[in-house]
């Protein structure tokens, strides 16, 4: 299963090659032109039959993780996060270090050795370490040199009626949707961009969008889902099982209103489950893409993911399928009539 394979690859921001190689092999089967740019983005072109416009799809390959920054006593490793991670979820988690995937666990001083103040507060990352079974600093240095990447170790698990648990659903779910979209033929040129370093500042997408110069772009993401106990209903960013989530605005983008309404209406007319993202926090590649060159019309279609940026992200298979069908549908509509792309580009499409 594609999503299982994708999430079991490691690709902490800046170190996406394992994911890239896997996607490249998959894309090679799909009659495409493939290149890797200087930022490590994999840009896959599906040539159009009668291209008047360029449509960019974007999904980032990278995931949050860690990097080796030093060594503690007794062969332990000091580390820093790469991307936004809540330190409170880290203790007791399994990780793999470096290319050789050396197993490790994240630990700290045992609870009965902590004084009252320490017990009452959250352990800081500075006071955590990774134990890779080394006995001495020299051994740890050899196994995990400075700057070595560290990824969460997590299995892909299907559970409940339609739930999937895995690490890096943000944004391997998007990568899987792009690979699906590349199976079909279109009249326009489709540039599926598998981008790098999204989690550290939308960096790959910025470069890719500049190169591609798209007429319209769609970002396919894994987004936050806060429909859990303790959160007021009005603060639920998205709801699991309610379908593909469309962003109206987040910290990085005010997406094109015409385009998002067009996508929303298409979904409703074709019985694809769809919801708006209710909060305006977070950000994704759209932020970099819509600001590229003279500006690009952009929208985001996302799979809601609970416990995002953790090794136990949870999504609904139905939502994933909704995102896949919706993306496919939008692209097929663009292909049937490229004037739609033109109308979106010129802001003439009124819904």
């Amino acid at each position: 299963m594609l999503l299982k394979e994708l999430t079991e690859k490691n690709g902490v921001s800046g170190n996406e090659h394992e994911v890239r190689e896997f996607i490249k092999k998959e894309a090679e089967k799909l009659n495409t032109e493939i290149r890797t740019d200087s930022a490590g983005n994999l840009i896959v072109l599906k040539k159009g039959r009668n291209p008047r416009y360029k449509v960019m799809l974007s999904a980032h390959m990278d995931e949050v993780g860690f990097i080796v920054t030093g060594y503690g006593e007794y062969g332990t490793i000091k580390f820093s996060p790469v991307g936004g991670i809540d330190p409170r979820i880290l203790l007791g988690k399994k990780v793999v270090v470096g290319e050789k995937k050396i197993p490790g666990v994240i630990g700290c001083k045992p609870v009965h050795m902590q004084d009252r103040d320490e017990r009452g507060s959250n352990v800081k990352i500075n006071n955590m370490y990774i134990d890779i079974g080394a006995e001495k600093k020299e051994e740890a240095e050899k196994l995990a040199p400075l700057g070595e990447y560290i990824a969460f170790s997590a299995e892909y698990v299907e559970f409940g009626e339609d739930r999937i648990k895995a690490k890096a659903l943000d944004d391997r779910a998007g990568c899987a949707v792009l690979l699906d979209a590349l199976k079909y033929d279109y009249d326009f040129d489709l540039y599926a961009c598998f981008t790098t370093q999204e989690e550290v500042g939308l960096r790959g997408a910025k470069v890719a969008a500049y190169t591609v110069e798209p007429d319209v772009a769609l970002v396919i993401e894994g987004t936050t889902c806060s429909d859990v106990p303790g959160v007021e209903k009005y603060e639920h960013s998205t709801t699991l099982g309610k379908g593909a989530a469309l962003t109206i605005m987040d910290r990085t983008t005010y997406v094109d209103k015409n385009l998002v309404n067009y996508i929303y209406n298409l979904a409703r007319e074709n019985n694809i489950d769809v919801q708006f993202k209710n909060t305006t926090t977070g950000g994704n590649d759209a932020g970099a893409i819509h600001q590229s060159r003279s500006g690009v019309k952009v929208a985001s279609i996302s799979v809601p993911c609970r416990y995002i940026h953790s090794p136990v992200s949870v999504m609904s298979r139905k939502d994933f399928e909704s995102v896949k069908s919706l993306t496919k549908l939008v692209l097929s509509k663009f292909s049937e009539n490229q004037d739609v792309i033109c109308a979106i580009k010129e802001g003439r499409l009124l819904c």
Partner: protein
Amino acid sequence: MFDLVKRLTDVFGTSGNEEDIRALITEEIKGKVDDIYTDALGNLIAVKKGSGKKIMMAAHMDEIGIMATYVDDKGFIRFSSLGWVSQYFALGQKVRFKNGTTGAVFYEEKLDDMKDLKLSRMYIDIGAKNREEAEKKVKIGDTACFVGDAVQAGDMIISKALDNRSGCAVLIKAIQNLPPTDNELYFVFTVQEELGLRGARTAAYQLQPDMAIAIDVTDTGDMPECHTMAVKCGAGPAIKIKDSSVICHPEVKRLLEETAKEVGIPYQLEILEHGGTDAGAIHTSVGGVPTGAISIPCRYLHSPVETASISDMENAVKLLVQVIGK
């Protein structure tokens, strides 16, 4: 000047929703320039053709506001801010959606301490009986601006959205009083400045000007017991030295200062500690653009009672027109 500013501030135009204000500005400048068009992000670009230097002048036309994010069973609306909105300024205010629906902004009374007030603990009451009735008027993603009709008080105007409709007024007046010049002039009314100088960035990329001047409001330090800042209302337009987004190009700054001195326009120099302007996005565009800024001193920024001086605006027009003609 007051009538123009009143027309401009009355019109709805939250960040990302600049359609109405764009239409009004287009009406005001129609026939005075060679070309007017709207770009991908919605910037309005008016061009006066010429064979000389390409000069870009930018004033953002968006205003701060709120976006509806959730409607509850009883018809109350939760919201996020568009641009920086102070919870204290918003409290007890009216907001108006694009379709005219007006609502009261209030807060959850359970709150123990006003210091803990956050926008996420506030809501908008549009007088609906339930969710169904509310959703007929306001949908998730709809935006609203604050209500604060423009009034004249002596030399001052009190209004919402003087940030930056007063800058737009300056650009419009400059277009209506263009001096003879060979320079190619781009008057750009930008979008989404309040969300991160977004319109100016893409506009500057496409125009690739030789020089740029941003026109926006700036903070002042002339209110009782306020922070220290050497800018005051009524002392002339401020020539920007720096803010958090830009250190203005010395040549552009010198040009503005010398022009003001030559013609005898009162001016002041501006150093803004917090806050940025379109100049920040423009000056790092493509290979870099020498950029300066003319600021209208304005009190109570991002509130519905922004207050600025008419004579400062008029002097800003004079200064800009003189600079264009050079």
